[in-house]
């Protein structure tokens, strides 16, 4: 799963030279971000307020009292649109949170491996090989089952298990700049190792890490939704798109298609847009492309 970024370089370029698609995706992402941040202000209903008389209402623009259920309601009478606004928050918090954890952990370990080399390098990179051979979803399922559900735990588990790709990228970058003349010059000047790493190596490796983060983000968001769908992610009373889709499957046979369709479209919209922007970022920023 982590290899697609190698293969797709340049693939979008012709297509994206028009830039229209990227502009559209960026606009879409801004809307999503806006909806997530201002969810309490723009949501017409309390997303968790159950209202059994209003259960499984068909999407409608009409309402006798107050705002309408534009995207319908679920089995508990909760407003789907409001639920989606709040679900976006969970998706983005887990996505960005886990990417940050993975990136910091991976950069730290990759830096050590690449800069100091030797036995540390061997141990860290072997661990990375093992980590990448084990599917993240299996590890995450086991850990969540044993330690219990929770938003913070989910961020931590997905974040910690995702370090290996960052460590590899970081190590490769550090190796390529470590022996450059300007680093040697700093060493000759007596600059401390820490200062060399922070001031002279780190700025050179941030771009590939940024690209990698953009590629990883939609996968993480999808993983959160998947875990929550399976009932092993965020707690049941946290609004998550994955939980919404799971609730939707339960009422599928009673004809209530809207309960699962709209949260799913939202989720797919997030990942498609981030994938498009990530492809574009890679083409623009990645020096290898």
């Amino acid at each position, binding site marked *: 799963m982590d290899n697609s970024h190698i293969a797709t370089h340049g*693939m979008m370029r012709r297509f994206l030279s028009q830039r229209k698609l990227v502009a559209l995706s960026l606009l879409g992402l801004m809307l999503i971000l806006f909806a997530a941040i201002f969810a309490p202000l723009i949501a017409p209903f309390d997303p968790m307020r159950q209202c059994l008389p209003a259960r499984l209402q068909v999407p409608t623009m009409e309402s006798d009292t107050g705002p309408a259920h534009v995207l319908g309601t679920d089995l508990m009478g909760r407003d789907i649109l409001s639920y989606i606004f709040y679900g976006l928050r969970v998706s983005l918090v887990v996505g960005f949170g886990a990417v940050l954890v993975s990136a910091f952990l991976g950069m730290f370990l990759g830096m050590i491996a690449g800069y100091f080399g030797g036995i540390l390098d061997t141990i860290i990179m072997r661990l990375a090989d093992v980590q990448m051979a084990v599917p993240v979803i299996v590890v995450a399922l*086991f850990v969540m089952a044993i330690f219990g559900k929770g938003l913070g735990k989910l961020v931590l588990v997905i974040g910690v298990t995702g370090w290996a790709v960052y460590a590899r990228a970081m190590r490769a970058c550090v190796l390529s700049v470590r022996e450059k003349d300007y680093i040697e010059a700093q060493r000759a000047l007596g600059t401390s190792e820490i200062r060399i790493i922070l001031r002279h190596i780190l700025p050179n490796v941030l771009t590939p890490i940024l690209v990698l983060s953009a590629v990883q983000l939609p996968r993480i968001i999808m993983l959160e939704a998947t875990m929550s769908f399976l009932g092993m992610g965020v707690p049941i009373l946290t609004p998550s798109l*994955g939980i919404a889709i799971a609730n939707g499957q339960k009422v599928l046979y009673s004809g209530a298609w809207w309960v699962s369709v709209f949260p799913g479209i939202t989720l797919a919209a997030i990942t498609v847009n981030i994938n498009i922007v990530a492809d574009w970022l890679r083409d623009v920023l990645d020096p290898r492309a």
Partner: protein
Amino acid sequence: MIAYFIRRFFQVIVALLLLLFVMFLMVYVIGDPTRLLLPPEATKVHVEELREYLGLNDPVYIQYLRFLNGALHGDTGQSFYHAENALQLVLERAGATVQLAGTAILLALAISIPLGVITASRRGGWLDRGCLIGSLIGISVPTFWLGIMLILIFSIGTGWLPSSGRGGLAHLVLPATTLGLYYVGLFLRLTRAGMLDVLEQDLVRTARSKGLSEWVVLYKHGLRNALIPFLTITAVQIGEVIAFSIVTETVFAWPGMGRLLLKSLEKLDYPVLISYVLVIGVMFAIINMLVDWLYTILDPRIRY
């Protein structure tokens, strides 16, 4: 060659032993199954009896040796919930998972490789652009939601295909499509990128200048060389497919080991969890050895 595979075999054994050790630590030392097995009103005496029965009161190393001895004899203990040997339980369901994952992979390969070759040879054409957008959507749509949408359209809407359970070929269509679609998108991108690299190389020019037909140039000379890096990634992906079949099996109530895993996770049925990891580990090892062997067929220069 044979020496290589013997060496690999021992590496696999060491890896599996390590895996078992980690699993043992995780479930026997960290978790406590008694609080799950007994109702909350159970008395201390009952808890003690159960701990004694399950052997949880013995020193950790005794538990580990007992566990290891059992595992080496194909006995990972009895399931806490099903009155059956845990390994047996997993193996009974492994067939269904292998059938589902295998069909999904074959389906993905059968669609994506020809499309990847065609799009690479007609770069920038309408088919290329169409596939580009298609593959983007394929890797972006969440698997479980796709499954639900397929049920909505093909089971509930039209009634053409069954939406759950395992039976004839018809039962396989929707789950395999759901599981395979992501990989159609991914493999398409990989094949196309690999072909674009190969098509610029001298070997393709030589093949063309010999007057070979475009078909032979593309599929015999081009694809063969593009497949080598592709194979490495596919090997990793097969592991992912088996892992992600957990999701598909849940959506379609497919009686495979993924669904068993999820149910066992909810109840912390440790013997079953350990058996699952063991079976998956062995599967991965076999797949990787098969891939190593395939390399030598695709590229005779590779020797072990």
